[in-house]
């Protein structure tokens, strides 16, 4: 089986290094690049990584455009967010715009490899409590009661 290719897009250099270290030790996973801006991540989407690890703050700073932009160039790429603490609302937004999972910094050493494999396999990496919130949002959207985002 070909290895799973991963691109890291993270402004926090230490966290990016941790991710690269963890993944280097994993069998069947290859890190094909590390970048620190959305612009570079979008440009390098042409390499069609299976997984993009994306700094949630970078996603937020791009007005949520980062994931749609990457996926417009590389539909096969699935995005896992790298998050800080207490970012629930931002995570919810980012997932609504196409991210397939998220991991806090303290989870990386234990779960990054697992999350990468799961998301590559078509699954998600989302906590059960977040799923409940996503469903509530889905129900609101279905009912047409959600207001569009303010400019």
């Amino acid at each position, binding site marked *: 089986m070909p290895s799973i290719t991963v691109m890291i897009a993270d402004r926090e250099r230490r966290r990016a290094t941790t991710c690269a270290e963890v993944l280097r030790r994993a069998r069947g996973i290859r890190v094909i690049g590390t970048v620190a*801006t*959305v*612009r570079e*991540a*979008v*440009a390098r989407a042409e390499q069609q990584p299976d997984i993009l690890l994306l700094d949630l703050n970078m996603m937020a*700073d*791009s*007005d*949520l*455009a*980062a994931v*749609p*932009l*990457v996926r*417009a*160039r590389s539909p096969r790429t699935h995005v896992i967010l790298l998050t800080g603490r207490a970012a629930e609302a931002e995570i919810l937004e980012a*997932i*609504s*715009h*196409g991210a*397939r999972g998220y991991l806090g910094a303290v989870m990386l050493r234990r779960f990054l490899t697992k999350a990468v494999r*799961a998301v590559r396999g*078509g*699954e*998600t990496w*989302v906590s*059960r*409590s977040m*799923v*409940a919130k*996503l*469903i509530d*949002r*889905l*129900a609101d*959207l*279905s009912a047409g009661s*959600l207001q*569009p*985002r303010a*400019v």
Partner: protein
Amino acid sequence: MVSDQDSSSSLKVLAASAVALRRMQWLQALERIATVHEVGDRQTLEHKMVALKPTILLLDLALPELRGRGGFAEIQTLSPSTKIILLTKSPTDNEGTAMLEAGARGYCSADMDAVLLTKAVKMVQKGEVWVGRKVISHLLDILVALTEQQRNRVLPNADPSFDVLTPREKEIVQQIGGGSSNKEIANQLNVSEKTVKAHLTSIFRKLGVSDRLHLALYVNGHRPSFRA
């Protein structure tokens, strides 16, 4: 601090299935953590929903006369606070997604073992949702599609022509489409970030798009022929 036992003593579960064996399995699985009541037909179920207002209803989708999603929604209205876990012999991703959208808090195999069933009930009691991983993927797909639809609905007939933009504005639009930040654009064009923001405001207005995300998608998806 509330111990596990205290929190569970108030847990009222209603188990609804026409299959007595199944009800017995559920009862045995849950009797240590909850008070379990059983019903075997829809009429009794309706009665008990109103009378007991259970914390959780375990509802076999094969219950006669339930009539699927619509019936489940009717049952829910009898006790809106009750969290409903639907159980079926052969769960499917599509049905699971539809049921969760309709308000179910759990959807799983009716043959789930005692350990898992206990876990599911505890999770749902805590306000979480119990579904298979595949159903979650499916839900996310729908959520993303609906979010996009919602966004597009804001400007249903917007048909911006990029001709209305100045050459400088076109440059900025292309950079946005490449994922550049305001700061990067400012550096690139050798102007201040404030100037970039002013340009953006003008661009949004001229094109009738609502924000950066919308603009970025427009450039990428809807106007592939666009060149600055």
